[in-house]
């Protein structure tokens, strides 16, 4: 283990001692100074990443950042120029064969023998790792919803179906570590959603998932920890909840737009206030309660406070990668930097506990950067007015539950966390949101209002490994997954509305994924088909 990793880990533990139990878990995948040159090009440059057992680990980077090269290095397809990786306690290269026994997955697109059926492909590939029963093959095919095409030639499969088959192939031997290289590419929205739920379920089941992606919202939704790399180097590494700015964007609609704007400017500064499609966009960070209090004090009728659509991790990512791969300088701490919960904490928030005001942004410090943010834990971090002056401020992330990333143009010019204050137009019938006045908005200090809270949910829900995993299938509807999809906001959701989702029990079998989820009730050894027999594959067929 390199000193960098050690220091990073120590910092994390200092920042959040309560997490030390979690940090104590063994690393199932780690790279140590991993370097790969292709001729003169340095594709991977002294990479140190650490994936702990049980993580759903997001591996982010722009195209050409070296993501796939790293995966190939870690799985022994290519040989490092220097450094090494460690997979399940085995060194790669060196003990590759032993290491690969613990890994399932695919690199780039999953590939198969085109003239063979899906079933035969699985049989062939699976037999290379160890014995595979026909029942297990049927099981994984059911998990990914390809049972009805099990005996047709893979050559006739669409890209999305091959992706699904790739996931089935990865799960065949129930490996400890599942490495998926952009598993949702080429999938339709339904398929994406299913795959993400499957990944979350794997995480709940204790499987470590290494998810390479350039879809930030995907990582935000399913991952507990993530690393962003660019040019083969780690840009930033840490829990997903901390990899995005925590400033919260809330759309507030009042009865007087102009006055509301003035008030907001008075609170947050001129730069923090913008207008967006009839709404006022104000960057308020965690101080939505303060904003609302001021609005109410100014005799404005607050109609609605909802999270504004924003880029979250995407903005952060663009900012990081555009700036020559340096993580942002830690500016005087603003509200965005404190109360950044880890995935698990965020999950607790979601269950409407007040947020812990412990600061943990120290984890944001890049591994190579020697100086941890001393300011991170300071109490004055909560000073509300810091926002307006911060142009480093990353925009907040709100409801991104099932939504593809909105185009960057949708962000307001000011990139910080925003509160959208929508003032009712004369004669305009309010939008659906306008009526959704939330009484909790003016809640106690430091407790974000409900819409805000739910914005923390997407990355959070994969976190609690214990609670939901063994829950009865019927509890599903109450899980954060569902809850966060109820968050208002722009959605391009393909899934049925929350109400219908809640009523759908796994037994009705609409989604193979929920079939899978049903299984953890009897975690090891029990067969999926036993616990949820009548899965139909409807909706899965192309």
């Amino acid at each position, binding site marked *: 283990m390199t000193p960098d990793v050690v220091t990073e880990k120590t910092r994390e533990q200092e920042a959040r001692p309560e997490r030390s139990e979690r940090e104590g878990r063994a690393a199932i995948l780690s790279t140590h100074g991993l370097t790969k040159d292709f001729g003169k090009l340095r594709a991977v440059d002294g990479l140190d990443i650490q994936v702990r057992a049980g993580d759903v680990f997001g591996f982010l980077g722009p195209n050409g950042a070296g993501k796939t090269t790293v995966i190939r290095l870690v799985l022994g397809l290519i040989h490092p120029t220097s450094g090494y990786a460690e997979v399940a306690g085995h060194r790669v290269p060196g003990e*590759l064969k032993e290491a690969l026994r613990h890994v399932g997955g695919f690199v780039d697109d999953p590939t198969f023998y085109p003239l063979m059926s899906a079933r035969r492909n699985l049989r062939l590939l699976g037999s290379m790792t160890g014995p595979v029963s026909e029942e297990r093959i049927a099981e994984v095919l059911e998990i990914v919803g390809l049972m009805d095409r099990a005996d047709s030639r893979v050559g006739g499969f669409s890209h999305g179906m091959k992706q699904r088959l790739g996931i089935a192939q990865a799960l065949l031997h129930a490996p400890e570590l599942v490495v998926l290289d952009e598993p949702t590419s080429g999938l339709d929205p339904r398929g994406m959603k299913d795959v993400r739920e499957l990944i979350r379920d794997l995480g709940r089941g204790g499987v470590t998932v290494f998810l390479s992606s350039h879809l930030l919202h995907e990582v935000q939704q399913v991952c507990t920890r993530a690393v962003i790399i660019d040019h083969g180097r780690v840009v930033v590494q840490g829990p997903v909840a901390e990899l995005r700015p925590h400033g919260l964007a809330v759309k507030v609609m009042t009865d007087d737009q102009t006055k509301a704007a003035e008030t907001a400017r008075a609170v947050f500064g001129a730069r923090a206030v913008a207008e967006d499609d009839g709404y006022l966009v104000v960057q308020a960070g965690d101080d939505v309660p303060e904003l609302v209090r001021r609005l109410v004090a100014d005799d404005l009728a607050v109609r609605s406070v909802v999270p504004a659509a924003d880029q979250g991790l995407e903005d952060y990512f663009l900012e990081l990668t555009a700036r020559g791969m340096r993580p942002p300088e830690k500016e005087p701490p603003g509200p965005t930097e404190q109360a950044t919960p880890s995935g698990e904490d965020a999950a607790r928030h979601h269950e409407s506990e007040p947020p812990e005001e412990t600061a943990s942004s120290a984890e944001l410090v890049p591994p190579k950067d020697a100086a941890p943010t001393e300011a991170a834990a300071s109490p004055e971090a909560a000073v509300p007015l810091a926002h307006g002056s911060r142009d480093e401020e990353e925009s907040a992330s709100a409801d991104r539950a099932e939504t593809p990333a909105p185009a960057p143009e949708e962000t307001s010019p000011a990139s910080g966390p925003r509160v959208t204050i929508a003032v009712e137009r004369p004669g305009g019938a309010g939008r659906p949101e306008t009526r959704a006045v939330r009484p909790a908005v003016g809640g106690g200090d430091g407790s974000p209002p409900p819409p805000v809270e739910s914005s923390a949910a997407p990355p959070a829900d994969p976190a609690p490994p214990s609670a939901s995993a063994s829950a009865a299938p019927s509890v599903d509807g109450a899980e954060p997954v569902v809850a966060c999809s109820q968050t208002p906001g722009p959605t391009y959701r393909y899934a049925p509305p929350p109400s219908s989702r809640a009523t759908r029990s796994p037994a009705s079998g609409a989604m193979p994924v929920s079939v899978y989820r049903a299984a953890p009730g009897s975690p090891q050894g029990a067969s999926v088909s036993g616990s949820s027999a009548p899965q139909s594959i409807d909706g899965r067929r192309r």
Partner: protein
Amino acid sequence: MSPGGVCACPPTPPPERDPGDGCHGSTQPAMRGAHWGPLRREWVKLLFTWRTYLIWGGLAAIPFLMALALYISDTGPGPGEGPHFMSRVLENGLYVPVSALAALLLVLLPLASAVLGSYLVAGEAELGTLRAILLRPQSRGSLIVSKWLVAVLTLFVGLALVVAAGILFGALFFGLEPLVTLSGTTVSIAEGIGLIVLTALFALAAMACMISLALLFSTLTNSSLTALIATFVVFIVVQILVSFSYFDWLEPYVFSSYFGEYVNFFRDPIAWRPIGEALLVFGLWSAGLTALAWLVFRRKDILS
């Protein structure tokens, strides 16, 4: 992983699960007969490839077409013309497989071997399945060796088809007679068939060299067509070179110079010495080229 895993561990809550408990199915003892696993897999792969059947069909068609053409025209090539033994086909159907093998050894068999060999690694790289199979805990060495063996096996099936079809159509068109050897003696039909089988096995040994050569090029490139062309260019260039007297010194070292030694089976008694020499050369070339291919493949960066 818990849901329906093939392992039968006690249902522990996921968070407490120790990753090292060996619970996942992947650490279960390997299946019985695992050594045959790689061979069987490669064989299945070849069976699920059209080009395998194309090669087999082509090889089986050659003796039939030859017999048919000679039967219809009723005039064979004169003595010394065409491949060995071709001139005798009209008198004795047993010469059909012999002359078919002789004709095939010139171009078509080396071509078929080169196709098979060059596809072995580069073909999988083209499909992208190479990275899929290398993500499985199998050594690259066993992969190369089993691939080579299965390619030889495929060719063996092809040669068996040639012999079977040759004897069948020779008997149908011309009838089988006792074989007259090059030394002028006559051997029985059964003995003659034995000699033909030996000839086919000799051809197989010769073609193993071609497969190894193609396999080497197959590991050097990600395109099976490039590997095929490279193999054939080398094969032809060497043959042209040794045809010049300046390169006579090269001839003993080149495996293609020994392709014609099968005629020694048709002497009475059989001249084993040149045959043994030829087999030794074939063996050395096959082993050397395959080992080289393994060395290349062992350290190869799989970027396909």
